[in-house]
């Protein structure tokens, strides 16, 4: 079991006490491609931030790789994010002043398990996988939106994580680029046995995934 959520409850206290997530429990298996759908405000992004360990203010239990993460120190959670979880956001979130290659290399440098040369080779390999190796030495602010999203995916892959989470990774892309990203995800699941958990609005995208988790008013409905 790669990811397991047990009875997760989340409250917003400001401006009024409001329960966003109600008793969320589900699992993601190895090599599974799962999408989360639901209307705006149903709490799917909030759930993703909790699953990603960035938000620690919740009730319930979260396991990644069968390891309980709830209640761990922030620094431990940061290293779990670094080593085990890859992220792709709706907005590309690259460091604009760094080159594409440096952006991809950064999480691996933080992990510090490999030498600079190895990391660089790894990063080039990921970029090649996503078909953007020729952009490697450009500043990341100078490439197109579709390319940026692929760089973000390459960055998410650099430490060979157990699971990749995406918060509407195609929400900002046209249908062609959107399909492109889906194909890349599909390929990762098939070839590398990666687990994927993607929050999306895009029904076409979701219908092609292994499983759809549908949310409404803070609960899983299907």
């Amino acid at each position: 079991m790669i990811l397991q959520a047990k009875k997760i409850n989340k409250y917003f206290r400001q401006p009024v006490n409001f329960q966003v997530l109600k008793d969320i429990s589900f699992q993601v298996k190895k090599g599974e491609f799962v999408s989360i759908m639901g209307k705006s405000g149903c709490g799917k992004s909030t759930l993703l931030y909790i699953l990603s360990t960035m938000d620690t203010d919740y009730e319930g239990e979260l396991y990644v790789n069968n390891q309980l993460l709830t209640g761990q120190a922030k620094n431990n959670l940061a290293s779990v994010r670094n080593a085990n979880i890859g992220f792709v956001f709706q907005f590309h979130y690259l460091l604009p002043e760094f080159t594409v290659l440096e952006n991809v290399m950064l999480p691996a440098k933080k992990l510090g398990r490999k030498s600079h040369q190895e990391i660089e080779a790894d990063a080039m390999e990921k970029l090649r996988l996503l078909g953007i190796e020729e952009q490697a030495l450009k500043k990341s602010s100078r490439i197109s939106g579709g390319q940026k999203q692929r760089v973000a995916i390459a960055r998410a892959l650099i430490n060979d994580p157990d699971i990749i989470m995406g918060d509407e990774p195609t929400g900002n892309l046209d249908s062609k680029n959107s399909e492109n990203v889906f194909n890349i995800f599909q390929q990762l699941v098939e070839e590398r046995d990666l687990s994927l958990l993607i929050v999306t609005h895009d029904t076409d995208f979701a219908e092609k995934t292994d499983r759809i988790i549908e949310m409404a008013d803070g609960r899983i409905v299907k």
Partner: protein
Amino acid sequence: MKLAVLLNISKTHLLSRIKQSAIAALGVTFGIGTFVTMMSFMTGLNKMLDNLVLDRTPHIRLYNEIQPSEKQPLDLYDATNNALKVVHSIKPFQAKAEIKNALPILENLKNHPEVLGATPQVKAQAFYVSGAIELNGIINGVDPLEEDRLFNLSNYITEGSLRDLANNSNGIILGAGAAKKMSLKLGDRIQLATPRGDFFSLKIVGLYQSGLAEIDNAQSYTNLNIAQRLQEKSSNFITDISIKLHDLERAVPLTTVFAEQYEVNGVDIKTANAQFEVGTTIRNMITYAVSITLLIVAGFGIYNILNMLIYEKMNDIAILKATGFTGRDVRWIFISQAMLIGLVGGALGLLIGLGLSTLISTLPFETEALPTIKTFPVNFNPAFYIIGIVFALVATFFAGYLPARKAQRIDPVEIIRGQ
């Protein structure tokens, strides 16, 4: 490895906004440069002024002061011990101005292990007579070569030399002011009239200039025997003994010892120049105060720029945290940016400080008070450079600390959600 990663991020941040970084660094450069220059210059001046006093002032001066006896004869009379004693109109005893047994004392002092040297002086009053003019004069009978060895008297001889005085028993080194008043120059003869009405004719072998008009108008130096003859005294008549010690700090306790041992009055250099030390301390305080103010201003500049930078870099901070960088990593990224600014700005400041100090040390500085000094004195003490760079790093660390802590606490969820 990890630190290198963080430093690389800071470097990229700094270089990608080179103008802002340069302005922040310039603030530090200006502060440190001014600090180094001011410290070098001010302490150079202080040291020169101190040396001025230390060089020419005896560490201990022994003399006989005219003062009323503390014990009146009546006090020695036992019969009145329990009675009230009243003595009217006490006058000082007509004591001799000379130090009793001066020559044996001198020998004794010269053999004292803590004494570097001791030299006798004879003070005498006379009038300078030139044609119809009569001027008040104070004649200092000295041992010219010893006086120069111990108290650098030759620094104040503008013409002629002390050696000429030593070689010419009828020579005189005349105060420059007096010489000017009487239109006398090197090689001329001058008439001295004693208060008793005797006349002496002396040859001017040098001119003396201390920078203080009052002294230059009256004081002159002769050999010991001339000053003794002016007062019709023998060669054991000595009015003052000037002592130079190996260690200046011993002046105060030794003065008491010598004064008691030889039954004379003594004054030490610290008592004689108390106001001087106060001046030095205050000048140093002002220098430090101004420099630290400059650095604090530079620090606020850095604080401001980093604060703005952190608002601009919210996204970057969120990404770094989302991809596994800890809050502490993020804090160090920003603190190291501040300290890099401090390091580069500070190093430049040291260079500018060195340059300015060197420039100042070549500027002409001629003053009547210091005839031997031609350029501004500058103290090239490496300690100022070390203090400067350390201060630059410490100040920028604190300027960076608060904004960096803010960055550390940024919640990435809020930033990502806010998009």
